[in-house]
C-alpha cells in the first residue's frame, strides 16, 4: 500500500548540495509492521518526512494507496520522537487527542474515538490532565492515542521511544504491538534500536550510510504474539539481531549507486 520508488533527496547547501538519500526502493503492505534501521545520520528522518509529505523528494516517488504523496496524506498519522514539542501544552490530554478529529468526524463519533483511544493506551482517567503534568512515557502514550483516534491507514513512528527510559520503552513497545493488533493499522517504524526493530517487526529495511540506499530487506519470522522475555530468548532472535548488526557495520562504507 506504500510504495517508495527510486526516492532521492538532496539538501541545498552553500557548498553545493548534500545528498541525504541516494536511492531508496521498498514497499510496505497492508497491515505489515516494517522497521527502517541504519547507521546514524543515514537519512531515516528525511525518509519519514518525504513519506509523510512534510518534505518533497528531489527525485523518485512515494505513493500511498496508489496516489502520489504530495503534502501530508489524510490517512497517515505520525508519532514524533519529541513528544514535548508535539503535544500542545495549552490543551488537556483529551483536547490534544480530540483536536485532529474536528474536521474528520462528527462530535459524538469523535468523542467516542477519543475515549476509546485513551482507554487503549491506559490513560482513560488522565483526560483532564495537561501533558506537562505527565511523565515522558505517558506523554508519548498520549501522542499514540492521538494517532489512534485519528484512525489512519498507516502509522509512522519516528524513533518514538528514544527519549524515554529503557523500562518505559519496553512497555510502550508492547503497547504499540497491542494497539496494532486491536486496530489493524499498518506501521512503519524508524529506529536506531536494533533489538526494538527485530522485536516488533514483520520486516526490516536496512539502510546504508549517507547518501543512503537500501542494503537489504529481511523478513522477521518470529512467532506472534511477541513477548519481551520469551521472544528474546529464542535463538532466531539472536541470529536476526546479529545479522542486522553486521549489515549495518558493513554499511559504514557507502554502497556505490
Amino acid at each position, binding site marked *: 500500500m506504500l510504495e517508495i520508488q527510486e526516492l532521492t533527496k538532496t539538501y541545498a547547501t552553500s557548498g553545493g548540495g548534500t545528498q541525504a538519500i541516494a536511492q531508496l526502493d521498498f514497499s510496505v503492505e497492508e497491515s505489515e509492521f516494517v522497521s527502517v534501521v541504519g547507521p546514524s545520520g543515514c537519512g531515516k528522518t528525511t525518509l519519514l518526512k518525504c513519506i509523510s509529505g512534510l518534505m518533497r523528494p528531489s527525485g523518485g516517488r512515494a505513493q500511498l494507496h496508489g496516489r502520489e504523496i504530495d503534502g*501530508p496524506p489524510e490517512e497517515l*498519522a505520525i508519532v514524533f520522537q519529541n513528544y514535548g*514539542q*508535539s503535544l*500542545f501544552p*495549552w490543551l488537556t490530554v483529551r483536547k490534544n487527542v480530540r483536536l485532529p478529529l*474536528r474536521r474528520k468526524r462528527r462530535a459524538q463519533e469523535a468523542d467516542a474515538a477519543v475515549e476509546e483511544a485513551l482507554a487503549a493506551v491506559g490513560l482513560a482517567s488522565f483526560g483532564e490532565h*495537561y501533558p506537562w503534568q505527565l511523565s515522558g512515557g505517558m506523554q508519548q502514550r498520549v501522542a499514540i492515542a492521538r494517532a489512534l483516534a485519528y484512525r489512519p491507514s498507516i502509522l509512522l513512528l519516528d524513533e518514538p521511544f528514544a527519549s524515554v527510559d529503557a523500562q518505559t520503552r519496553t512497555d510502550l513497545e508492547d503497547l504499540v504491538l497491542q494497539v496494532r493488533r486491536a486496530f489493524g493499522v499498518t506501521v512503519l517504524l524508524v529506529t536506531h534500536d536494533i533489538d526494538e526493530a527485530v522485536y516488533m517487526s514483520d520486516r526490516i529495511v536496512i539502510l546504508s550510510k549517507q547518501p543512503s540506499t537500501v542494503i537489504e530487506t529481511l523478513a522477521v519470522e518470529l512467532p506472534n504474539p511477541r513477548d519481551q522475555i520469551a521472544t528474546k530468548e529464542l535463538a532466531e532472535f539472536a541470529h536476526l539481531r546479529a545479522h542486522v548488526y553486521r549489515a549495518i557495520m558493513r554499511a559504514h562504507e557507502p554502497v556505490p549507486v
Partner: protein
Amino acid sequence: MSARAGRLGLEVGVTALIFAAIWLFTTSSDSYLVVALPDMLSRFREVWLFDRVGSDLVPSLVRMTYGYVTAVVVGVVVGVAIGLMPLLRALTHPLISFMRAVPPIALLPPAIIVLGLGNSMRVFIIAFVCVWPVLLNAADGTAELNKTLTDTARVYGLSIGQRLRFVILPAASPRIFAGMRTSLSFAVLLLVTSEWIASTNGVGSFLIQAQQTFRITDMWAAIILLGLLGYSLNQVFSLVERRVLRWHLRSTATSA
C-alpha cells in the same frame, strides 16, 4: 516565623520607613517647591476622591484604552502575518525599524497637523507607540515556533484557521504578553505626553496646567495618581497574564 512572612514584614517595614522619611523631609523643608507629604495626600484626596474622576481621569482612561486595544489588535494581526511570511518580514523590516525609533514627543507636531487637537490625535499617539512592542514580539513569537509543533499540525491536516487558533496564537502568546506588558507602561506614559498640548481634560492636562500655574500641590497630587494608576494596571495585567498563561508558567516550571 516563616521565611515568607519575614520577607513580607521586611518589605512593609522598609516601605513604611521610606514613607516616614519623606514625611519628615517634606514637612521640615522651607522651599516652596517642596510640599509636605500630608498636604500632598490631602490634596490628592480632595481632587481624585472623587471630585475630578469623571472630568479628568475617565476621559484619560478611555483614550488610553482605545489606543492600547487598537495597538494590541493591530500588533497581533500584523505581527503574526509577518512571522508567518518571511518575505513580508524582509519587506517591512526597514520601515518598522524606522517608525519604532521615532521618539513619541516628536510625533506630536505631525499628529496635530494631520489629526487636529482632539481625541483622535491623542488616541493615535498612544496607539502608534504601543503597537511596536506587541507587533515585534508577535512576529518573533510566531517565527520561532517549534518545527515539530508545526509539523504535527500539518500532518494532522489542521486548517489554517485551526492552526492559528489552536497552535500559532497559543504558542506565541507568552511572547505577545511580554510585548503587551511593555506597551502598557508606554500607554501610561503617553497618556500624559498626548495631553501635553492644548488639551482641555485629562490627568496629563491637569498636571501640565498645575505646573504652568504653579499649583505645586496639585501637581504632586497628579503625579501620585499616575504612579498609582501605573501600579494598578500592572497588577491587573499580571493577574490576567497568570490566568491566560497558566499552562506556560506551570509547564516551564515542571520541565527538567
